[in-house]
């Protein structure tokens, strides 16, 4: 096999997410390279620090079941579509050609816009507008 060691494998090595071949290459590198060993130790510490962050301690969270008025799977228009106000040119083109949200269609998950560059929206549409349910963002043009 002709693979070469890649530094980002060190993180995957820590997480036991490498193939056998990749793991062997990492272990060989670790034997030979003190910098790689030091980096592995640092990565381990970073991982440990994040792991020890406190979990959710807010006892008061209560899901507002009143938000569930109506049936599940209410299929309103555009509820999954990216917001036109934040779509980039490429996103808008993709939307026009029907490719936007293709992955959402495949996975069944509502998508968000995926490009950070905004365009002025000719006609802003509230992403949550659906029947009598009011958007909680209280946008001026909403509901």
């Amino acid at each position: 096999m002709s693979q070469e060691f890649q530094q980002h494998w060190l993180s995957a090595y820590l997480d036991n997410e490498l193939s056998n071949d990749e793991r062997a290459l990492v272990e060989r590198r670790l034997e030979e390279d003190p910098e790689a060993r030091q980096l592995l130790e640092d990565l381990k510490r970073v991982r440990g620090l994040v792991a020890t962050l406190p979990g959710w301690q807010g006892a008061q969270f209560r899901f507002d079941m009143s938000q569930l008025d109506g049936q599940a799977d209410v299929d309103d228009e555009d509820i999954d579509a990216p917001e036109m106000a934040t779509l980039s040119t490429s996103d808008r083109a993709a939307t026009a050609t029907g490719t936007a949200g293709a992955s959402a269609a495949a996975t069944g998950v509502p998508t968000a816009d995926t490009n950070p560059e905004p365009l002025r929206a000719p006609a802003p549409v509230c992403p949550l507008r659906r029947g009598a349910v009011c958007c909680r963002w209280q946008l001026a043009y909403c509901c």
Partner: protein
Amino acid sequence: MCEEDQQDINRVLQGDQAAYAALVERYQRRLLGWLFHACGSRDEAEDLAQETFARAYRKLRLYEGRSSFYTWLCRVAMNLLISQRRRKRIENQVGREGFEVAMSSVGHEQAVDQQMERSEIQQCVQAAIAMLDIERRTVILLRDFDGMDYEQIAETLEIPVGTVRSRLHRARLELKSILEQRVGQLGQFVAS
């Protein structure tokens, strides 16, 4: 997929709205945990969780059971989180301000959020995480805080496993760099 989840989902789809409360109860703390660290705000995390559960409910019929319900739920949350961040366009400002506030509070009696009773180290780490861009922040939280494996992260973020690997590594390197700059050698941190 968890059999209990599937049973609850079936009940919801048959019109039993109350069954959804069981799903919410099962996953709300776990979801809120990483959302809190991703948002840096309890209120924002709660709002996002509310919206995530509401949207997931409305779209429940689209859930096909290919991934776990929790992974699917996290994907809904991620889409909302990214959408929200881009709408507000204040991600960097919030991150840096948050970091400065947290760092300045270290060693003082006043904590950033007294209710959370975080240690000084945890405050530093939280503040450093807030400085990462949203993609790196979420990948490191899903892996190192929530405990997802790479496959689950890939499903949640809708990216290839190879991208999870490289993005996670870059996130850890950046976090290491931020912590080293602010506090000196990483070895000074002692994970409690």
